[in-house]
């Protein structure tokens, strides 16, 4: 169930990359003999801020240029679009979006529920690494498009002797009230399991070490929030340490917040996001939605899109952004992967509610 | 022509219960609301301040109560200067225009309220409440809520509440104005009875001249912020100090003319009358005569003994129940006089158009110097 990522895995499929689909080839890589009617627009659910800007620059705008189909970005929260899509499927209605940009865990729930279209036929999948394939599901109900790391972000001014080495730093008295975690503890459960003296092999069977460690962190009165909160808290000097996605930390740094990040010795959670298409679209719209995703996994699209996000993609040969060369949150070398923890989406999906509940139970006390 | 004796104005031994001296009230816009008001009220007396709306009577009452600070002047209650004393530190019971009972309390709780607020011994409070509920004839109704009582009963609760703490002074701010006539007259007599029983010094404010005459020992008539006259009711009625008082208390007809040796000359018609104060002959004057002091007869011979007799033509006859009011045009005067006829035997004696004779005695036509007071009309 546990996948320590290897460089080999990431680079698999390099051979196929030679025939990387180009912008012009979107129309060329036809799934159908005849091109169906183009819809006026495609609606893509996306995260706001730098996330949607990166998607727009790397995927949506070039797609529009190549096909003439406008792309509208729906910035409804991923958690809030999910029940709407599910309700539409249950009632046999046309879903409110064409493409959902989603976490792999959430997307897996939708896949299990059977509301996702199968994407196995996308021609460009041939050139992707195995990161693109969702683990534990049949076919491609979703296509993973990049990986990301829940790093330990910190303010360098409080660490004059270099970055913190271990998640244990969260327990130092001087950081009482100056720590931030995600609301539901996402990204923190697995490193906490290691930091609490447990083993990753025990997930999900015995996670007591994680809960013990989280209970100790609770004594430190951490703040709990979402991505935008972290940026605000760093900016306003409310916190010194946070477990957050590296993209957010990088964005805050770009905005002038003095912030750095590291992967401590216990490791960091590595996860993926992907794109999927809800069931119930008219045939022609489904066709063009597939074309959009097919285009999103071309090296050209990935390069621009993921430069914006600062994350490693699912096609080989991408050039990392200059500021992320040798960055632990942008794994390229074998040793980069040694400290990244990846748990299969299926295990996460089955147990996530319990983990969230347990985390809440500790934190709401 | 024998003027009524002047009322006894000599102050009683000791201090008057209420002394108002040179009080002005300036609200900053328009003329003074109260101007130069001064009067003294002896202990146990019932004074009514009478005047039309806007006359300053309510303002004067609120100044005495302490809800308003006068711009100038002094208030003394029981010899104590209270001009700057807060209302709840003055020993004053007040009955308000809209009663201002506390709807969330029973009648008895309303009556007990001032005792509690004035920190009376709790043990004595129930007895006092009972006594005063009995005084206002509400014995047994103390447990009722305010909205369970009739209008008259609510009046009585308000009186008991104002009196129960035995204040030195009782103030009545037109509490009867909203009642129907029958209840109002009943309550007027009740006020008088209770006031006499307790002997509490009382100041009442009203615009109802009948109420003032019925309940009061003394009346002050106010107009335009000024005290026009301060007198006993009968004197106020018979000897008004100026045309305003004459017009406001009772029903009078006014004649314009010039002063003569025997009365006044109204455009050639000689009218016998009595001057109020010294007025030189030939001066412009105003005469006032009350409707009930003019006699009306078909045969002028029956008016023998009247000092003035004039022919007239009945223009209208108004039935008022216990009396008739005639509007009689007197061609010699060029105006219509109001004439009361009280004799039930001769009801509807004259129809409109009937030719009649009017007569009066010299002492009943009061003659005022036009320069003196305000116009009666």
């Amino acid at each position, binding site marked *: 169930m546990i996948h320590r990522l290897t460089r080999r895995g990431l680079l698999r499929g390099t051979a196929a990359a030679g025939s990387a689909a180009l912008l012009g080839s979107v129309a060329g890589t036809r799934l159908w003999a005849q091109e169906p009617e183009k819809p006026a627009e495609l609606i893509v659910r996306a995260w706001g801020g730098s996330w949607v800007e990166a998607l727009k620059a790397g995927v949506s705008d070039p797609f529009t240029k190549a096909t003439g189909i406008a792309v509208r970005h729906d910035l409804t929260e991923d958690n809030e679009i999910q029940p709407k899509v599910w309700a539409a499927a249950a009632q046999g209605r046309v879903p409110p979006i064409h493409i959902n940009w989603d976490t792999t865990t959430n997307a897996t729930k939708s896949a299990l529920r059977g509301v996702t279209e199968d994407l196995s036929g996308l021609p460009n999948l041939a050139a992707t690494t195995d990161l693109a394939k969702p683990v534990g599901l049949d076919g491609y109900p979703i296509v993973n498009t990049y990986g990301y790391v829940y790093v330990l972000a910190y303010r360098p001014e409080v660490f004059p002797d270099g970055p913190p080495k271990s998640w244990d730093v969260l327990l130092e008295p001087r950081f009482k009230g100056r720590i931030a975690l995600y609301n539901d503890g996402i990204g923190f459960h697995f490193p906490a399991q290691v930091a609490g003296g447990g083993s990753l092999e025990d997930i999900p069977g015995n996670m007591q070490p994680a809960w013990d460690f989280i209970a100790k962190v609770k004594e430190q009165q951490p703040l709990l929030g979402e991505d935008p909160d972290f940026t605000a808290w760093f900016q306003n000097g409310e916190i010194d340490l946070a477990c957050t996605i590296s993209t957010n930390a990088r964005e805050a740094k770009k905005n002038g917040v003095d912030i750095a990040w590291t992967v401590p010795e216990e490791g960091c959670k590595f996860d993926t996001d992907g794109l999927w298409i809800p069931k119930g679209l008219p045939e022609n719209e489904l066709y063009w939605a597939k074309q959009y995703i097919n285009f999103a996994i071309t090296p050209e699209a990935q390069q621009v899109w993921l430069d914006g996000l600062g994350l490693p993609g699912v096609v080989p040969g991408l050039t990392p952004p200059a500021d992320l060369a040798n960055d632990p949150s942008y794994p390229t070398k074998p040793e980069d992967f040694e400290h990244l923890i990846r748990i299969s989406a299926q295990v996460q999906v089955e147990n996530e509610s319990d983990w969230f509940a347990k985390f809440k139970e500790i934190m*709401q006390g | 022509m024998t003027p009524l004796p002047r009322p006894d104005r000599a102050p009683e031994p000791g201090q008057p219960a209420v002394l108002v001296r040179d009080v002005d009230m300036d609200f900053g816009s328009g003329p003074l609301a109260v101007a130069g008001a001064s009067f003294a009220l002896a202990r146990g007396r019932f004074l009514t301040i009478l005047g039309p709306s806007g006359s300053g009577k309510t303002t004067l009452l609120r100044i005495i109560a302490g809800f308003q600070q006068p711009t100038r002047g002094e208030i003394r209650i029981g010899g104590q200067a209270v001009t700057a004393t807060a209302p709840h530190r003055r020993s004053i019971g007040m009955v308000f225009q809209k009663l201002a009972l506390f709807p969330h309390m029973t009648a008895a709780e309303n009556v007990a309220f001032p005792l509690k607020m004035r920190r009376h011994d709790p043990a004595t409070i129930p007895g006092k409440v009972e006594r005063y509920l009995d005084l206002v004839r509400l014995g047994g109704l103390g447990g009722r809520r305010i909205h369970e009582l009739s209008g008259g009963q609510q009046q009585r609760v308000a009186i008991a509440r104002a009196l129960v703490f035995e204040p030195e002074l009782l103030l009545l701010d037109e509490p009867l104005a909203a009642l129907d006539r029958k209840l109002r007259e009943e309550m007027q007599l009740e006020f008088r009875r209770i006031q006499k029983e307790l002997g509490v010094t009382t100041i009442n404010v009203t615009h109802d001249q009948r109420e003032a005459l019925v309940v009061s020992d003394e009346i002050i008539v106010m107009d335009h912020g000024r005290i026009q006259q301060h007198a006993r009711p009968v004197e106020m009625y018979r000897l008004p100090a100026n045309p305003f008082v004459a017009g406001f208390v009772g029903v009078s007809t006014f004649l314009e003319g010039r002063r003569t040796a025997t009365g006044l000359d109204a455009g050639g018609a000689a009218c016998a009358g009595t001057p109020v104060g010294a007025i030189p002959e030939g001066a412009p004057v105003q005469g006032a005569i009350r409707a009930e002091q003019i006699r009306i007869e078909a045969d002028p011979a029956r008016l023998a003994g009247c000092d003035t007799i004039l022919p007239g033509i009945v223009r209208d006859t108004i039935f008022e129940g216990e009396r008739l009011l005639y509007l009689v045009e007197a061609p010699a005067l060029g105006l219509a006089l109001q004439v009361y006829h009280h004799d039930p035997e001769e009801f509807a004696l004259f129809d409109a158009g009937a030719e009649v004779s009017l007569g009066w005695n010299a002492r009943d036509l009061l003659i005022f110097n036009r320069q003196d007071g305000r116009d009666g009309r």
Partner: protein
Amino acid sequence: MSSFRYPLRWRLMDALERAADLLWPERLSRFTGWLMIAPALLLVGLLVLGLAEMADGSLRTLDRATFLPSEELSLANYETALGSATYWRVFGRSILGATLATALTLALAFPYAYALVRVPGAVTRKALLVVLFLPFFIGQVVRAYGWLIILGNGGMVNEALGLVGIAPQRLLFNFPAVVFGLVQYLLPFAVLMLAPALTAIPAETETAARSLGASWVRTIWHVVLPMARPGLIGAGLVTMTLALTDFATPAMLGGGSQDFIANAIYDQFFRTADQGLGSALALMLVAAGSAIVALVLGLFGAGTLAMGARR
């Protein structure tokens, strides 16, 4: 030539009345009352339908293999909710927070409403109203964000404390901060509900109390407060319900560890996709809110809201 001309407005009204007569003939007039409240009934009906839907959902557990609600009905979600120490704590915190916020709000709203009603100058009254309404235009989320700025570690308050040599204090992200934010959010509602109740108390009643020997404070305590009771209870019910069901204030000022029930419901619906458990929690919140309203009305009677006939 008459000096009176039949106004155009009257002609218009006549035409409208004739049209209304065609649409809703006179003989239907005894149903007119029902017609008027029909939209309100429809809205309530929709709400009831939604509640029924939720009640059904709350009886179905989530199958994590398919992420579909179960076919069979059970009380498992309620057992989960009632068996969880976390939810008990969240419910307790919501009720305590709502009660505290209501008490503080009423304590602050009463003098404000009193001033609003009794202040003599029209200019002062308008100023008080503007100050009261301003937060309404700003909106709850922006207001909460304002508190983040003012009370944050680098905020104005801590800067002021710094000037007198006090180290920065954590003023946010705790229970008092949530209650504080709720009070600020609820104050205008309470003032607007109290003002009419206080207007209904004649100024003369207070004057009377003063003349009977009550000081200003005792007049307020013994006369104004008891007479304002319907308004206080109405305002209390509204603020209590709003506070109990609030989402944004605990989310923004609680720092994630001060969840109210609404936040827990949100988590179930949107974070863990467990609509069954979310529905169960939502219905328990409806039940708790209804119980509080019923308790208050039972204790004081519906007449306390100045509705219906006088008692």
